[in-house]
């Protein structure tokens, strides 16, 4: 009798223990699943955020966090700013239905963004129909000037193809103006405690925007500054433009229109960068 009771108690105890262990295992498994789901959500969020800011910046934020009361996290850099704007956008926006306009402008954003990515730049922001891009603002890039002009030429080609596509559909063609300058500035997360964005600020961004506006004055589509010209590969074909007074700048601004790229660097038209010694190349 006692033995039966003891065996019964043991069986009941074992069953209770097994049930408890099973529940614990189930809880652990659920927790693991939740953890995995949270990790997946975090990855998705990170991927989504990568569309809003450079991937490296998003990774830093996720990994390091950002203190709400922290000061500016920008650092001094030498970078190249490229400013693109759609020619005649205001008139177009008055003529077209908003849905068609949205389609056209999204296609334009896509053309420009792809060309900039392809040439190692990154899109800083979309300002209406204007796009600001930077080269060398995130990681050091000694070839930033050549990259920016290559990107501008790629934008020209891509917009021409897109414009032809629009024309085939009976939509108005588009054209762009591009200004490029290089200079020192502050790069990093800028903004208020509540809202920040990755940006590069400095004189070169302002001048790039002004040069973009000057493309209408000179009747060309890509203009670069004198500072940028001195760093450029001589293989680019440049045409000097007459100096023009520009708002915010004391001296008239000297600019060069970019015609294209010569197949033979040695016979490239336009002024050439001086060849320096490698002691200058490695600062």
């Amino acid at each position, binding site marked *: 009798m006692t033995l039966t009771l003891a065996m019964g108690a043991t069986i009941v105890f074992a069953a209770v223990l097994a049930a408890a262990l099973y529940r614990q295992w189930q809880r652990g498994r659920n927790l693991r699943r939740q953890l995995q789901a949270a*990790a997946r959500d975090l990855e998705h969020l990170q991927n989504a955020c990568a569309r809003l800011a450079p991937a490296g910046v998003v990774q830093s934020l996720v990994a390091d966090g950002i203190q709400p009361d922290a000061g500016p996290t920008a650092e001094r850099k030498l970078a190249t700013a490229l400013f693109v704007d759609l020619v005649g956008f205001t008139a177009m926006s008055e003529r077209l239905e908003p849905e068609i306009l949205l389609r056209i402008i999204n296609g334009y954003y896509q053309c420009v963004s792809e060309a900039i990515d392809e040439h190692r730049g990154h899109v800083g922001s979309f300002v209406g129909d204007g796009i600001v891009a930077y080269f060398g603002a995130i990681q*050091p890039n000694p070839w930033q000037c050549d990259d920016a002009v290559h990107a501008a030429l790629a934008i020209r080609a891509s917009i021409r193809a897109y414009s032809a596509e629009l024309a085939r559909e009976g939509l108005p063609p588009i054209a762009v103006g591009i200004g490029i300058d290089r200079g020192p500035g502050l790069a990093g997360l800028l903004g208020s405690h509540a809202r920040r964005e990755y940006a590069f600020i400095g004189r070169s961004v302002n001048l790039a925007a002004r040069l973009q506006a000057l493309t209408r004055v000179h009747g060309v589509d890509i203009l670069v500054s004198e500072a940028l010209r001195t760093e450029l590969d001589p293989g680019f074909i440049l045409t000097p433009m007459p100096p023009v007074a520009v708002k915010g700048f004391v001296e008239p601004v000297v600019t060069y229109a970019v015609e294209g790229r010569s197949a033979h660097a040695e016979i490239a038209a336009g002024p050439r960068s001086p060849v320096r010694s*490698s*002691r200058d190349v490695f600062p």
Partner: protein
Amino acid sequence: MPSALEHVAWETCLVDPQPDRALEAYARRKTGIPVRSIRYFTPVPWLARALIDLHPEYGLLMHLDQNIADLLTLIVSRENSCRFCYAAQRALLWGQGMSEAHIQRLEQELSAGLAPRTAAAIAFGRTQSRGGPATARNACEALRGAGFGEDEMKEIAFTVAATDFSNRAHTIPAIPARPLERMPDQFLPRLLRPIINRIIERHRSRGQSAPLKRAPSHPYARLIERYAGSPIASALGQTIEEMWASPHLTRRCKLLIFAVIARGLGCEACALEIRKAMGAEGLNEPTLACILTHLDAPELDEIERLLVRFARETIWFDPAALQRRARSLRDRLSVPQLIEVIGVTSLANGLCRMDAMVMGHS
């Protein structure tokens, strides 16, 4: 256990695996486990060997805590978005007995709950990979502040460099990462985990002091000398000697690749070494300056012109974009040439970063 890098776009593999019994046996002897990935590199033996010989897990570190080195490898691989190396390191940690939960915690909140020394080492690894030598200067000072000695710091520099090298060597040809990513979820590896653990433990070894057999004469000789007495010096010296001796690319072409990467990283110490070696190859200063400023010059031959441009792509990269650019080289180069390019660019990236920190020019 999904890997944190599974979302990273990864192209199909650029090269075909080619079995080589001797090299595979060499890798198995050293690591204890079959290293199938080595088959992708066998046409260029120095690279296949270097991927094993420069792994910080096997007999190279004398001063740095091995756990810190393991974490550094994981973090740098993540920073470089190398799905293969990240999965391999994760599998290694898992094989050593680290729980899945612990690995995931490490991935998700790396900076939290770590000892100050570990946190400083990780911060250095991340900064070096993300911003290069110039931005790693403060992180380097933080290492000293966290109490790391000179020998430990040199081993940290080596661990980060070796991982940068391995990351690029596996990322450029898009070595398949899926089998390694899936390993911890598969029945057989889970069943054999204790045995795997034992094998890994048996082959994992600390470095023994080893004199430098002969003075290095090539570029980076001064860097090797700084590691004199450490097994790192011999392993690195031998890899560099074999790389220069390998016949698939000319010495001048390799030097140009090194020069472009040094320029991209702003490494003055490397530039000095390479400038001296370039002189012996008949490239004068103005020509070199022109190449480094615009990645082109009339004196370059077709392959050199192609490769100096490719070299800069390996400094900072998005894996899929880099893999697509590497694919475009495939039609212009033989398979051994392509693999040698992968090896030289990868090694140059590691060495330049290491040199900048160790020689104090960061």
